[in-house]
């Protein structure tokens, strides 16, 4: 396999590739526009029809991008792969100092540190551990999380002998979220490392993949960012399993297609990527955008912008789709997925500012435009459908204007076919949406990969079911995203219902589903009834969208069930190669986590403040916590304030302190030492009942000689 470097890639050849790709998008969109315009135009173009046409062009072009990417990917894969792509060097290639960083924010501590344990062990097994250091960069602002992280870090270091290799840093002031967290790391320690691998809290990478990434960077000094294509794994609910199946089956086509036209002008997705540190420090610090949040202010979705800045500075950004052993986890339910989209929506919409920024490469502008469209297309689709409803209403109320002909035949260059034009357009749209799925199944068959998806019959059945489910989910996602875009533009947040997490609850409960999807259901019912009254024919055209909205509550609950996910697995449905033959690292993580979660959880009354309890009461946790704090000088006023807080904590219990006050105490080393001393010195009757219970219970919980909550 040949490999073209950024410098040696023939620009003319790249231009031809891009010309072909974008011409394809243009061509497909033109054909669809032709049909739509013809459909609307026959009785003259009204203002409403003009709006419908304009929206249609924008939305269809967006669909065409996905179709053309998959089509090009199919072409590339059928030719045996792209001759110009990143291929890792052979084993034994030289490596360089690399920091593996995992920024965390109130994550499941067991998951974070067990993942780190697995990655550490996996790197160790490659024999290249000397080149790697590991950092947990915490921005957690919940006392429980903070203390658990400290304890888990120490335990992990002890267990794997990782002192001096695995580090933990908690930021005192968490500004600028993940981008600020990474920037803080780079300011402190960036110069020590040539590369950094950025992981998410739910990422897993094998040692082999990490070694391959660093070796590739060493071999190609012009690359600034090398992004891998993480596989979505470890899903148990039906929703998560469907998502991971779709990701695994369809992504090869899209990755090959993306690499075909973007080459060294690829994108960065924020995690599971290796970055050359010095150029990142020099060029990728992010300024604020004009105005304030949500639309302006600090850049939330930093990754696309960092890729653009890296390219602007002349460094290559490649997609390494061939590197195996890179994983992430997806949201378990439709509602969790929507919550994630809510965060991403705001960040992606901010990129509108940067679409015409000077110095960015066209490919990066296109990435940002697609990011914006990923969310803006939802309200546009909704608007398109609503305007279409209004258009039908106008035609029904003015029957004189309604010409029967477009419903009877399709006209192509003067030739008339006895097929309704709208139906032709519908078929074209379906073709664009579903052909990539069909091609993906064909590719899996051709490559002999069907067994990796559970077998030929199971693969086809799963793909068909995934298509049906994705068609039902699409209108719900459209409704969610439309709401997110509008609320972002209006500067509003979205409130979420807290789920009742009982041990018996399997997935989303009815209360949460009704409160979250109730509006969508009502909207669907009203829209469906209205369209049926206006025109039953039009209602049937709209019915796939209406069905998704009206059934959003049961769909959301059904997809969130782990029991149904397990049932599907037993039937061999939605299988992925990582399930059929799980990599060693994933099996190890699953086993470790199962062991962690078997451990006794703190009793109910203590659970909410268990981290604070440990930091004050446990002599070792207290000592560890104080050792990790920086000593600060206090003023007389602050000393008095802290004394009051300590007094309230011990005599009234933690329930009477705000989270901010608890964090303030946890950040003050002198207060933590003093609290430990005062708690153990004080007669029981002078302490809050909560502390008396804590002292009685803690000995039961610490019967085993361990300081970690789990393990």
């Amino acid at each position: 396999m040949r490999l073209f470097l950024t410098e040696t890639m023939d620009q003319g050849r790249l231009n031809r590739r891009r010309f072909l790709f974008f011409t394809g998008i243009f061509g497909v969109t033109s054909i669809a526009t032709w049909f739509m315009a013809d459909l609307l135009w026959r009785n003259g173009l009204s203002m409403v029809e003009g709006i419908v046409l304009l929206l249609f062009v924008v939305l269809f072009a967006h669909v065409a991008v996905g179709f053309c990417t998959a089509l090009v990917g199919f072409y590339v894969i059928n030719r045996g792969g792209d001759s110009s792509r990143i291929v890792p060097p052979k084993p034994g290639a030289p490596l360089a100092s690399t920091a593996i960083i995992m920024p965390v924010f109130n994550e499941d501590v067991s998951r974070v540190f067990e993942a780190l344990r697995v990655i550490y062990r996996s790197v160790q097994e490659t024999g290249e551990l000397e080149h790697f250091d590991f950092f947990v960069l915490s921005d957690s602002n919940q006392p429980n999380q903070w203390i658990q992280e400290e304890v888990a870090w120490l335990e992990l270091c002890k267990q794997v002998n990782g002192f001096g290799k695995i580090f933990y840093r908690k930021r005192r002031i968490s500004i600028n979220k993940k981008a600020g967290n990474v920037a803080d790391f780079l300011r402190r320690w960036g110069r020590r490392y040539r590369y950094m691998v950025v992981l998410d809290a739910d990422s897993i990478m094998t040692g082999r993949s990490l070694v391959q990434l660093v070796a590739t960077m060493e071999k190609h000094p012009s690359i600034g960012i090398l992004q891998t294509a993480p596989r979505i794994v470890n899903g148990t609910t039906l929703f998560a399993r469907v998502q991971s199946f779709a990701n695994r089956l369809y992504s090869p086509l899209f990755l090959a297609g993306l690499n075909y036209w973007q080459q060294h002008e690829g994108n960065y997705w924020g995690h599971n990527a290796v970055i050359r540190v010095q150029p990142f420090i020099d060029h990728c610090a992010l300024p604020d955008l004009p105005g304030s949040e949500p639309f302006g202010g600090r850049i939330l979705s930093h990754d696309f912008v960092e890729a653009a800045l890296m390219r602007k500075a002349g460094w290559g950004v490649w997609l390494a789709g061939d590197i195996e052993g890179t994983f992430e986890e997806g949201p378990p339910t439709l509602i969790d997925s929507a919550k994630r989209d809510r965060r991403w929506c705001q960040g992606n919409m901010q990129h509108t500012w940067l679409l015409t920024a000077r110095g960015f490469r066209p490919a990066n502008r296109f990435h940002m435009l697609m990011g914006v469209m990923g969310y803006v297309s939802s309200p546009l689709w909704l608007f398109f459908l609503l305007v279409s409803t209004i258009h039908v209403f106008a035609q029904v109320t003015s029957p004189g204007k309604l010409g029967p002909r477009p419903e009877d035949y399709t006209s192509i260059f003067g030739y008339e076919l006895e097929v309704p034009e709208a139906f032709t357009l519908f078929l074209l749209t379906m073709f664009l949406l579903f052909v990539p799925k069909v091609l993906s199944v064909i590719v899996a068959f051709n490559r002999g990969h069907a067994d990796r998806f559970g077998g030929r019959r199971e693969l086809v059945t799963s793909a068909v079911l995934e298509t049906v489910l994705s068609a039902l989910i699409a209108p719900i996602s459209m409704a969610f995203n439309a709401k997110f875009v509008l609320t972002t533009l209006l500067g509003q947040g979205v409130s979420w219902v807290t789920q009742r997490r009982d041990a018996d609850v399997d997935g989303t409960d009815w209360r949460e589903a009704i409160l979250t999807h109730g509006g969508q259901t009502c909207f669907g019912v009203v829209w469906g009834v209205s369209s049926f009254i206006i025109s039953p024919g039009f209602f049937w055209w709209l019915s796939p969208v209406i069905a998704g909205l009206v059934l959003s509550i049961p769909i959301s609950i059904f997809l969130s069930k782990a029991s149904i996910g397990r049932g599907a697995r037993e039937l061999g449905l939605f299988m992925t190669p990582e399930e059929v033959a799980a990599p060693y690292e994933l099996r190890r993580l699953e086993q470790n986590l199962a062991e962690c979660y078997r451990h006794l959880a703190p009793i109910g009354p203590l659970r909410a403040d268990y981290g604070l309890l440990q930091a004050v009461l446990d002599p070792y946790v207290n000592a560890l916590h104080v050792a990790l704090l920086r000593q600060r000088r206090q003023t007389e006023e602050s000393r008095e304030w802290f004394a009051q807080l300590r007094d309230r904590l011990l005599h009234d219990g933690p329930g009477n302190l705000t989270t901010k006050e608890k964090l303030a105490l946890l950040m003050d080393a002198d207060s933590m030492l003093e609290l430990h001393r005062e708690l153990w010195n004080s007669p029981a009757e002078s302490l809050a009942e909560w502390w008396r219970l804590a002292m009685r219970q803690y000995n039961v919980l610490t019967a085993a000689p361990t300081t970690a909550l789990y393990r």
Partner: protein
Amino acid sequence: MSGADSSGAAGSEADAGPGWDAVGLGGALDTLAGFRPKTGNMEAWNAAYVRVEDYLRAHRIHNRLHQSRLIQTVLERAARRHEANPALNPTQLAVEELELWMQRWFTSVLGATENSADRVAAQGRLAMLLCDGPQKWPYVFLDNRTQPTDFVTAMRTGAIDAGPDMSLSSMVPRPIDLGPIPEAAGETIERIEDWPIVRTLLLWLVFAGCLAVIFRMTR
């Protein structure tokens, strides 16, 4: 649970028969019998006992024999102070004695240090945690007479590095030239943000405009 242990220890004195001397345990019983707080009530000393026991268990001193010896010594010292000032609380006195003892012991194990007493104790506890002291050397905690060399070495080398040595870099955001249109839009937005009433009016204007368009379309 802890109370039962302490009452059990006190009960053994009454149950001891003359035969015990014959097996050479009389000396130990004498030692136990020698301690009896002269001031304060039983309830207060039981509470002190439980607290010291809890604190030792929080230190993972699970060796009952060693634990009992430490508790007795601590209570003896506390009792002597209580005799001098019976108004003081036995629990407080006992824990103070234990803390003082630990501070001195950690200082002797760790060697010379510039830290304050509180800090020395914290440093010592951390060193104990790192070397798994209570598990590997179950009789050594607070024992001044025998300190195994490997234990002392482990304690003195036990330190943590949460991060490597810093190597500072400057990472300063560079302004992005947004181009003329977004730049002008940004300036306008920033200006509008300074005038909240204008902002609200504009939003309502847009809303009213949308309603008007829908009205026009559906007529």
